[in-house]
């Protein structure tokens, strides 16, 4: 993998979004991944709809939580994702109003990534932002800098938040992952979280996945 990489520098990321008081992080993680994949394969950066997944992904539980692996299946089954403009975010489950003719991005399949952080970095640099999940214990009070929580306080066994891995690098000698969160730009570093890289911090390596756009 290159020594550092950041997909924000290559136009693959939409603006930081806000899930509100709804446990729909899984939808934001997956749409962020699909936005990146669509941009890299089709050349257009679209802001895609999380509300479509909250309303129409019957494999998951809307604001009660969900799994990225189910969301990929739902996107394939539904026939794609509408844009944020056409199917805007409400932060609560509503009746599914997906229209296939409004779908603007599609996926062909999805893959699980290695748990090795070096391999995740190489895959990210070559293929785009990655959906991951982690233990969010340290994130409630995070403000800035590279977070490296004391391991017993951030166990990999309590994965409870899905986010989007967008890059990696070093800050003053501290290796980090750059992570796009879905708690709005007024949280963290303009909506982003920086997590220590190389120690499987907070279980960030346990659930890395991506959609595939052919």
């Amino acid at each position, binding site marked *: *993998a290159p020594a550092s990489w950041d997909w924000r520098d290559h136009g693959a990321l939409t603006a930081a979004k806000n*899930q509100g*008081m*709804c*446990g729909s*992080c*899984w939808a934001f993680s997956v749409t962020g991944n699909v936005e990146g994949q669509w941009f890299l394969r089709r050349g257009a950066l679209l802001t895609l709809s999380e509300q479509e997944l909250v309303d129409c992904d019957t494999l998951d*539980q809307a604001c*009660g*939580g969900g*799994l*990225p*692996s189910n969301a*990929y*299946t739902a996107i394939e089954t539904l026939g794609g994702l509408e844009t944020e403009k056409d199917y805007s975010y409400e932060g609560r489950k509503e009746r599914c109003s997906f229209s296939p003719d409004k779908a603007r991005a599609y996926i062909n*399949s999805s*893959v*699980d*990534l*290695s748990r090795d952080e070096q*391999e995740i970095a*190489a*895959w990210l*640099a*070559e*293929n785009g932002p990655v959906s991951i*999940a982690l233990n*969010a*214990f*340290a994130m*409630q*009070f*995070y*403000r800035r*800098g*590279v*977070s*490296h*929580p*004391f391991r*017993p*306080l*951030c*166990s990999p*066994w*309590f*994965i*409870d*938040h*899905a986010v989007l891995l967008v890059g990696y690098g070093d*800050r003053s000698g501290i290796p*980090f992952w750059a992570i796009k969160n879905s*708690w709005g730009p*007024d*949280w963290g570093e303009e909506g982003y979280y*920086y997590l*220590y890289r190389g120690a499987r911090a907070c279980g960030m390596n346990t*659930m890395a*996945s*991506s959609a595939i756009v052919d």
Partner: protein
Amino acid sequence: GRHLPLASDPALEAPTQFAMEIYNRGRDPGAAAVLQSVRGRSLKMAQGVLYSLEVTLAEPPCSPPTACKHPQSSGTLLCRFEVLDQMWAKQTLLEQDCGQPGSQPLPWSSDHQPPPGLPSKARNQSSPDAGLLAEPHSSSLPRMGDSVELISLFKDFLTTYNKSYANATETQRRLGIFARNLELAHKLQELDQGSAQYGVTKFSDLTEEEFRMFYLNPLLSSLPGRALRPAPRARGP
């Protein structure tokens, strides 16, 4: 967090015994320090329970005096222990700091400059008896000496994040949660091994349970995910 009365809660016994075992490790039984009193509180977290203990113990006289590891530490000592008790793992002693009662401030934050967003003096350090650990459950709000700075922080928080509450009772309750969250942020700050700064965020008025309920996704660790095919490894330089 829950502020416990002195030595009256059996829940403190196990972490205290664990801390004393660590403290006395390597000593002959006759040379072990003896527990005199304990008071403390517990903070329930998703990862387990964090016990903050204030322990008074008696060090036996040194015989001969040259055998004392720290001659000044004989007699009565006041120690602060932090024990993390996890359901799936052994107890962990996160912090141990001992000194003569009244001779030094309690170690909490004494060597740590708080980060932005944390009060520079979250609790009175001038007297062990005035420490937060001694506060009863109902007084988790800041004490008089600390209240000006804490309330100022809380007002800034309300303004910054455009927060308002239904009535004065709810505002008071949220101030208490805010104060406890500052303590937790401070603990995260002390234990962080990177360069992160923790402190006031827009979630600082939420209990851990509220935060988990509204913003997190418990299904990620409770449901088996659908198996996906493995990604091909990256190929290019």
